[in-house]
């Protein structure tokens, strides 16, 4: 099946259940279906572990490990006042992690199926980032009122540096949701493009029948095993980085500088 490599095809959003309400297209797409799958996996995982046994079993230990991990993250980065943000950070982390990992499932061995990563779309990661950013703004203005603007003036800045520092701080503040969303979306998308391209190298290389093609296919195969392991790491790391940066931004809003 030697053919043109089309790495962008896997990101197409296709309607699974077409649905039109009042002229708006609200079909259940494959993106929505995979988000629901992520929700189902998270619910199942949490439900299996919430047994409240005094001596926890393996499953409960796994759930407690996850919640404890996020609890520590929030406690270290925001402090004692950050406890009320733990559910939000936890939801963010688990959703991104599970959505990333589900997108790596080798489902394409079933003909006609292919996994879809909701987090490889800017609309999804952008929404998550806007949620985090608005939470920072709401918490900041709620707690500090207009004093929140002192975020743009770092402590101990000499007065003659202020005209330079304040615009830089404002720009770096406003670019936060953009960078948050872009990091996750590009990391997931580039990984999937890489796997698709090298997967096509294997298919085309072995399919060509020539010794050179066989060599290329073999090298690509060895390479993609490593890339697959790296992608698992990137999935977890990007979810962690998103949760970490959200908690750092919340720390700015809660404690100012």
């Amino acid at each position, binding site marked *: 099946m030697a053919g043109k490599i089309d790495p*962008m095809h896997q990101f197409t959003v296709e309607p699974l259940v077409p649905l039109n309400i009042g002229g708006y297209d609200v079909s259940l797409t494959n993106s929505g279906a995979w988000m629901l799958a992520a929700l189902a996996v998270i619910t199942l995982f949490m439900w299996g572990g919430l047994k409240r046994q005094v001596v926890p079993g393996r499953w409960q230990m796994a759930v407690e490990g996850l919640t404890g991990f996020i609890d520590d993250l929030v406690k270290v980065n925001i402090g004692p006042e950050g406890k009320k943000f733990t559910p939000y950070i936890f939801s963010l982390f688990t959703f991104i992690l599970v959505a990333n990992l589900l997108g790596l499932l080798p489902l394409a061995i079933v003909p006609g199926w292919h996994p879809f990563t909701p987090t490889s779309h800017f609309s999804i990661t952008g929404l998550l980032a806007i949620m985090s950013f608005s939470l920072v703004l709401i918490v900041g203005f709620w707690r500090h009122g207009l004093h929140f603007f002192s975020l743009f003036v770092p402590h101990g800045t000499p007065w003659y540096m202020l005209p330079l520092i304040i615009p830089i701080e404002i720009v770096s503040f406003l670019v936060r949701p953009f960078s948050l969303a*872009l*990091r996750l979306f*590009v990391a997931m998308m*580039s990984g999937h493009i890489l796997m698709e391209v090298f997967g096509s190298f294997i298919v085309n290389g072995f399919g060509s029948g020539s010794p050179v093609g066989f060599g290329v296919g073999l090298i690509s195969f060895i390479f993609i095993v490593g890339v697959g392991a790296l992608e698992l790491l990137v999935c977890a*790391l990007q979810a962690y*980085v998103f949760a*970490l*940066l959200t908690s*750092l931004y919340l720390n700015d809003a809660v404690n100012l500088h």
Partner: protein
Amino acid sequence: MDVASAKLIGAGLAAIGTGVAAVGVGFVFGQFLNSALRNPAAADGQQGRLFLGFALAELLGLMAFTVALLILFVF
């Protein structure tokens, strides 16, 4: 030079940035390891800063990748 080939060359040039970001990420982790081996007791407390530095360095490489994609697919 026609536009199509200039586009490919431009995308290739933009992809250099991802390699430079690799240098940055390697620098972040290398320096962390360097100092963590000197003072292992203090290393665990700095993991948040390690990943913050990693995320900031990585973002610029991803930006370069985005620019390459924009050149290839948008224009």
